[in-house]
């Protein structure tokens, strides 16, 4: 076995170690590289910025703990922005296992900004059905959620005054970790009930949402931790996402190095085989 071959078949646990170190070091010793804001993220930010005080903003946190590191910073940044603009905030989730997380995010952000539950914001919790849930909300919000997460009858909440269906909501943002999320909100919601829709999502599903972004079906897209970091930069409150970007930089560059190394070794093997007349692998 040549050197290149041995390097290509190196124990993967060594690579695991490299990645572990590249993540850990920047977290312990942050650098703080500047972050450029993309038009996709600006789309969501500017729309919230343009909403007059008292407008209704619905944040659907459609993710579970597996995507917490990516989507929680987005949720926190969006809520801070919405609360600062004095919008009426409705929180909810389409993912049952995300309920606890969503509750925590909303109540913490509200506490931080001095907002009152039931008056400035409400957390509706989870309800089953995805598509049928969104349609029911579009027809009659109070049928879909007779009571909120804290068992308060929704009809009596001050924050929901004058809101009957999704048609009365000014802006919906879905933070999605999968198909029950932005797509569902568009197909079963915006398509018919005509609220403006924005999205935030994990890096895994972000590329798949660009057709919807281009056609204006969503007016902005916050993609992954980078998107969250951009949003934090836009509202001038740096948080977990910005802090994580240094580690992202390090691991990304490490992976790029690995890819290049892999190809160098691969080419070495190919050329040496080509010379010795062996069949190509």
């Amino acid at each position, binding site marked *: 076995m040549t050197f290149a071959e041995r390097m290509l078949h190196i124990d993967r646990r060594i*690579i695991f170690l490299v990645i572990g170190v590249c993540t850990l070091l920047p977290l312990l010793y942050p650098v703080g590289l500047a972050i450029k804001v993309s038009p996709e993220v600006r789309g969501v930010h500017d729309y919230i910025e343009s909403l007059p005080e008292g407008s209704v903003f619905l944040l659907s946190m459609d993710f579970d703990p597996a995507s917490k590191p990516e989507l929680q910073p987005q949720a926190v940044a969006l809520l801070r922005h919405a609360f600062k603009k004095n919008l009426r905030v409705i929180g909810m989730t389409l993912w049952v296992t995300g309920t606890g997380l969503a509750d925590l995010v909303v109540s913490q952000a509200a506490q931080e900004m001095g907002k009152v539950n039931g008056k400035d914001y409400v957390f509706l919790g989870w309800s089953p059905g995805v598509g*049928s849930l969104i349609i029911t909300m579009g027809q009659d919000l109070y049928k879909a959620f007779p009571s909120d997460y804290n068992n308060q009858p929704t009809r009596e909440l001050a924050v929901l005054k004058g809101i009957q269906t999704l048609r009365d909501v000014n802006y919906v943002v879905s933070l999605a970790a999968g198909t029950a999320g932005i797509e569902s909100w568009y197909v079963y919601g915006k398509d018919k009930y005509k609220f403006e829709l924005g999205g935030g999502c994990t890096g895994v599903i972000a*590329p798949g949402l*660009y057709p919807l972004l281009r056609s204006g079906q969503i007016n902005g897209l916050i993609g992954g931790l980078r998107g969250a970091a951009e949003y934090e930069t836009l509202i001038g409150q740096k948080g977990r996402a910005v802090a994580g970007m240094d580690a992202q930089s390090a691991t*990304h560059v490490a992976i*790029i190095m690995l890819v290049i190394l*892999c190809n160098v070794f691969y080419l070495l093997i190919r050329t040496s085989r080509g010379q010795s007349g062996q069949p190509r692998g």
Partner: protein
Amino acid sequence: MIFLRRQLPLLITFVAGVVFAAQYYVPHPTSELMLTEVTKWLQIISGFALVLGVTSLFHIHAVKIRRKEPGWAYSLILYGGILGTIAAGFSYSFTAGQWVNGKETINGIVTAFGWIYSDMMVPLQGTMFAILAFFIASAAYRSFRARSREAALLLIAAIIVMMGRVPLGEMLLPVSGDVTQWILNVLNAAVRRAILIGISLGAVALSLKIIFGMERAYLGGGKE
């Protein structure tokens, strides 16, 4: 009996499918009211379906424990996890002074159920997926080779996007940010759009076949 077992479900599917497809084109309040009512029902029924999904898990692990198959102790842990969580979900919170009833927090006080959620479920699920970070790196190192023109293209696109998405990459190669934007907005969007159109045609064809009784796999099992 044969009618009840075989034709009736097909008839129900047909009627429900046609009525709710047609509903889309009928804006009258009567039709909207029907939609509200039935989607609300569907919401409740999908709750039952969720329970149905987890029960097979109960069954499989019960068998494992009964037969003392290898690793049955793990099945016991699984059962412990289920029952413990349910018990916590319906326990009484003395600090909050009321029943928990599936609430993670009551007036800001974390319940036992909330504790299980944030200190067990969140780290467990989060770490499960975090493992993938290591594997993606190892896959990049060991499989990401420019074996052909196609593979080389994939590789270059991946590297550019990786550069363009992180501040350090943009610093090292300033053009990568703009190129990434272009790849995502134009090339990627084109492909995703074509795939979306293809998948949607497939989904519509499947739905039509279901409504007209040509596709019956959803009725479960081939045995009549």
